[in-house]
């Protein structure tokens, strides 16, 4: 690599002087009439030539920290030293040696790949042969070579992210700051990004990586865990999880009773956290739980026999434990533990159990746009009370399929039936039975919670007493009563999501469509959300969800992987994992299976 900085890594081995040192940093923002303490006396260090993960729930102060380090914001008090320079006073010098990729990659979508790079090369003062050489390297590095002339706006999410990265690497920085680079990016691209960043670290670049994905945090050398502007913990991720040794378990019961089992396990006093993980439940016990606690209690559960095995703690367990053991400092966070399925479940009649009934039936669905076939003959069925996940990389045809099922886009061929209604003939009728929650929570931001609920109730044709009852029930079910007059824009993310869900199910739909429901949401809010979805499925609602998020896929009963317009695999998460087990990787994660599947498909079906 050309340019100055890589020598720094040789002079500064991993344990030497940190590249960033923050001392008692405060940063406040005015949000309307009140001030928000974005960073509240933060002291932390970021080591050289390593990946430091910046982890924390939404609103913890991750982006603020990044902007302070780049000098885009000045601290109210405290000192920030970056590469030996004062970030607030010597901003230009700092900016000359850091690379920063903001959340939306900072690309000009109407410029081509090469033009974006040219711009950043001009701005970074890279000229002549040095520039040409650097471009060749970056193109090879990121695999963007064949797309030089393509407009950035026409790239897939993964390629945009790589181009954004390449732009920050035009002149090799000594410190690279990545703000949630993998949001909205599929697992294959996510892996490639990790590969690229690891190589950069090998060349001596220090990396600060903000993320809400806890499996990503696990791959960092060091982790800074932020919460409400304070540093909750710091250290290598293994040290986080080591503290939970002997407190994490997998519980496996009868397949059909999985959700009942989850409810019962959650109700146990010493259980801190329990989530569905494929076929199993993953359970975290409190510090006080004596050995054998889970085994002895599992024998008495109604859900039937359950097998308990100890498992290695993950970073996510540590995160949840740390967050839940925190005293709740503000009313902003949703209630810990989340609602029980029982209490939250709207009173819906369950159909005669046992007989699987296809509520959503998709047969040979095809959608063409001109000469391009976006969806190329997809078949699947979703039973009553089943949660079905649609996974796939960007541009695979996932959203197009989803839109056809919602009746928003007519299929070119094939059939899509929801509750026996053909969407091609009676899309409007079918929509009356569908609840739909969009990625960005389609709420009216400047209206209050109550006004939003009233509006959606009316939109679904509820009037008079029925409307009033439904609204009151929703306020009750979703714990929104205290917030009924709050402007929905100002709600904490978790509550916004609750409200969006409450609005989507105003009309008691038999089918619920969720489009990337928890992207950008922290793990605690995600858990709470899925508890509600579980409860609804339990009550007989069929749920169809699209996601990028492998952990989310694990909550599904079955998943279908869409790739290049076709359904390339479908089954339970366990089946998919088992199908991709290899001698080298006997227990693949769902992400491993996904990446393997896509790779295999590509080699069997060359384009």
């Amino acid at each position: 690599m050309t340019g100055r900085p890589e020598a720094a890594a040789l002079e500064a081995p991993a344990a030497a002087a940190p590249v960033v040192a923050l001392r008692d940093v405060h940063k406040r923002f005015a949000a309307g009439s009140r001030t928000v303490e974005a960073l509240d006396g933060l002291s932390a260090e970021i080591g050289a030539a390593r990946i430091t993960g910046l982890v924390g729930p939404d609103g913890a102060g991750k982006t603020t920290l990044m902007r302070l380090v780049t000098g885009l914001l000045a601290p109210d008090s405290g000192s920030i030293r970056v590469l030996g320079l004062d970030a607030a006073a010597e901003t230009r010098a700092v900016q000359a040696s850091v690379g920063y990729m903001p959340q939306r990659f900072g690309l000009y979508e109407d410029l081509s790949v090469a033009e974006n790079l040219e711009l950043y090369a001009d701005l970074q003062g890279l000229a002549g042969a040095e520039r040409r050489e650097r471009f060749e390297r970056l193109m090879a590095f990121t695999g963007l070579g064949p797309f030089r002339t393509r407009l950035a706006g026409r790239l897939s999410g993964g390629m945009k992210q790589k181009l954004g990265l390449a732009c920050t690497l035009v002149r090799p920085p000594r410190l690279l700051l990545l703000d949630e680079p993998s949001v909205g990016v599929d697992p294959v691209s996510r892996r490639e990004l990790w590969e690229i960043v690891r190589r950069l670290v090998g060349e001596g670049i220090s990396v600060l990586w903000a993320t809400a994905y806890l499996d990503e945090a696990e791959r960092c050398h060091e982790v800074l865990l932020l919460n409400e502007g304070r540093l909750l913990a710091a250290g290598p991720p293994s040290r986080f999880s080591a503290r939970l040794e002997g407190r994490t378990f997998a519980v496996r019961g009868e397949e059909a009773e999985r959700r009942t089992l989850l409810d019962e396990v959650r109700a146990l006093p010493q259980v801190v956290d329990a989530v569905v993980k494929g076929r199993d439940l993953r359970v975290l016990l409190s510090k006080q739980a004596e050995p054998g606690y889970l085994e002895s209690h599992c024998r008495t559960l109604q859900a039937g026999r359950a097998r308990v095995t100890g498992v290695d703690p993950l970073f996510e367990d540590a995160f949840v434990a740390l967050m839940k053991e925190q005293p709740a400092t503000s009313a902003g966070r949703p209630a810990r533990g989340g609602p029980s399925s029982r209490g939250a479940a709207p009173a819906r009649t369950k159909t005669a159990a046992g007989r699987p009934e296809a509520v959503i039936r998709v047969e040979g669905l095809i959608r063409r746009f001109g000469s391009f076939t976006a969806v190329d003959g997809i078949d699947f069925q979703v039973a009553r009370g089943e949660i079905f996940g649609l996974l796939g990389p960007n541009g695979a045809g996932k959203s197009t399929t989803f839109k056809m099922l919602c009746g928003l886009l007519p299929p070119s061929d094939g059939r899509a039936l929801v509750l026996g209604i053909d969407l091609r003939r009676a899309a409007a009728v079918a929509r009356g039975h569908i609840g739909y929650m969009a990625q960005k929570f389609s709420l009216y931001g400047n209206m209050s919670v109550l006004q939003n609920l009233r509006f959606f109730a009316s939109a679904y044709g509820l009037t008079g007493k029925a409307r009033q009852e439904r609204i009151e029930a929703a306020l009750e079910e979703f714990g929104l009563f205290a917030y009924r007059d709050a402007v929905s824009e100002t709600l904490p993310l978790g509550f916004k999501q609750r409200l969006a869900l409450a609005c989507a199910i105003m009309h008691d739909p038999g089918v619920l469509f969720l489009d990337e429901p928890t992207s950008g949401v922290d793990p605690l809010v995600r858990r709470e959300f899925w508890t509600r979805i579980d409860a609804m499925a339990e009550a007989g609602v069929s749920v169809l969800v699209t996601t990028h998020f492998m952990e989310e896929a694990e909550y599904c009963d079955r998943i279908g992987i869409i790739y290049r317009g076709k359904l390339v695999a479908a089954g339970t998460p366990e089946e998919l994992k088992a199908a991709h087990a290899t001698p080298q990787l006997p227990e693949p994660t769902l992400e491993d299976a996904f990446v393997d599947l896509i790779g295999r498909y590509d080699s069997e079906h060359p384009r």
Partner: protein
Amino acid sequence: MTGPSIAGPAMRLRGLVRKESLQILRDPSSISIAFVLPAILLLLFGYGVSLDARNVPIALVIENPGSETGSFAASLVGSRYFAPAVVRDRRAAEQALLAGEVDAIVVLKGDFARRLWSPAGAPIQVLVNGTDANTARIISGYLEGAWQKWLAQYAMDQGRALAPPVTIEQRVWFNAEVRSRNFLVPGLIAIIMTLIGTLLTALVVAREWERGTMEALMVTPVRIGEILLGKLIPYFLLGMGGMALSTAMAIWVFGVPFRGSAAVLFLVSALFMLAALGLGLFISTLARSQFVAGQVAIIVAFLPAFILSGFIFDIASMPRAVQLLTHLIPARYFVSSLQTLFLAGTVWPIVLANAAALAVMAAVFLALTWRKTRKSLE
């Protein structure tokens, strides 16, 4: 691709200007605001809107036809300003006025012929539809003129002296044909350049904030001055291009005379463009969303340029307070310069005063923008 001589600031500026130019060329809305919109506005105002009264439908009530009334009626029929319809009674004329079929009623009373030669003179009654005050004023003015003219002519023909011995001889300077197009079209150039300079720049800077590209730019070694220049240069050129197009259309399509110096026109336009760009950039440093920036630009730049610049409404006939307000509108100075340069020629006192005002405004807006813009997200 890159010469070794160019380095640092120049290279950064080149990168920014090239980026901005590519964006303009690829964005259909920029091109349409700069070239298509001016053409449409010019055609609309050039052909569609006219403040002249021509072939105005009027009802002529002749209560007692005679040779005198016949002569007056013939003079009205012969005029290119009026299309009179003769009716016998007043009621029918009023019906026509109410129905909007005529814009005015002229009543020649039964004793018209008798009183014509009396010392008091023969009154004619004129009723004008006053809904549109502007048109009403024009029509009554024309009718008055037509009456005076006929009276003088008729007296001469009859060889008799008339009560008012003074004859009015009108001579219109600068716009001899009294075509409203001749002063509307040059004024329109100011409106068009306001659109390009203020609205377009306000939008594009806000767009960089919205899309997060500004954040990425700021973490490069680029300086604020370079970012601002990188916006100014391409949009300046675009605005001057729009200006050239509008001027060419004014002269060759609409036949508006151009009596001033082309070099002076260029310089004054350049000054106005800088003021408009300065205002646009200033708006966009304050409003970081395209929606807000667009609204503000329309309210503080476009509407005043339309209403308060003297483009359509005469500043001298505005209330005093509003007249004072117009001094804050850059377009006011530009409209006045344009109308002078096109219709009267290079009248130095007017042009210099306007140019000085524009230079001051450009300097103020650009300085404010410079001071307000920080390489910071706060």
